[in-house]
């Protein structure tokens, strides 16, 4: 793995992007807007399941409307996140908080997929089942945790 990280850091186009203030800022921009879309739209579906948003609307069409935006955001986050990681792979890879962040994101994504697959079923039931509320709560908490973990990463990287 350390060798792979060294190799990633030396890929010519990664070096070019990492060393250019304009290009790397653009990558950060895509990463931010991507996760705003991903987390913002996922959160509204979770809040709807918890009964704290759009209570006058059915869950299924709202979830159907919002999840494609969430996955678009995820695509932006993965592409930009990979470039950000590759540029400093040897620094990021051993950092504990970075690993925690990736773990939390992975868990949040698993919950997201479950919520998306189940929401048509939950949405057609007379009331949202309790298990759905627990899953939605976990999803919400994990995404908020992922944002914090992501922001803590630079604080834990030795200068």
């Amino acid at each position, binding site marked *: 793995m350390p060798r792979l990280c060294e190799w990633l850091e030396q890929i010519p186009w990664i070096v070019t992007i990492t060393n250019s203030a304009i290009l790397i800022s653009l990558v950060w921009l895509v990463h931010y807007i991507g996760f*705003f879309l991903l987390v913002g*739209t996922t959160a*509204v579906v979770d809040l709807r399941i918890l009964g704290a948003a*759009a209570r006058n609307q059915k869950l299924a069409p709202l979830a159907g*409307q919002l999840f494609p*935006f969430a996955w678009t955001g995820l695509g932006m986050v993965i592409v930009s996140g990979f470039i950000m990681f590759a540029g400093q792979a040897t620094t990021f890879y051993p950092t504990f908080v970075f690993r925690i962040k990736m773990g939390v994101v992975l868990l949040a994504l698993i919950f997201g997929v479950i919520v998306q697959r189940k929401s048509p079923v939950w949405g057609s039931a007379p009331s949202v089942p309790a298990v759905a509320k627990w899953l939605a709560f976990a999803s919400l908490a994990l995404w908020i945790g992922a944002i914090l973990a992501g922001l803590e990463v630079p604080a834990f990287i030795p200068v």
Partner: protein
Amino acid sequence: MHTWLVGVCDQLQNIRLVVWLVTARYAYPFIQWTHFTGLSLWLGTTLALDFRLLGAGKKFQTAAELSDALFTWNWIGLAIAVLGGFTLFATAAVGYIDNPAFRLKVGVLLPLALAWHIFVQRKSRTWGRAPETPTVAKLAGLMEIMLWVSVATAAVWIPNY
């Protein structure tokens, strides 16, 4: 005017709580966290409506229904983002008010984008009645996306000064 503003900013960043937030090693990311959590709600829901106005996801809901569903958490998101943003500003206020990217963001782009957002959100009730939105709604949605991207671009550029 400028001297007075610098004075206010200087007082702001010397408030005890603010000084503590800056000096405690792991505290600063928590302020960023507030800002970014709020922004996720605010921009996630704002951009979702803009994309719907542009025609994405027609088969699920009308733009008016989506706008109605997102309204409350859209504004809760902004309130959280402003709270976090103001605290972030307070930690280094004197530096920020002379930062060209910050001035462009907060003084020009943000008020423009906010005003445009209020306009689009209000109009989406009439534009969004039918599954197909009118051309003017598409243009307005596209315009709003560009405005928020420009706000975010200015924000990302702040540390480069």
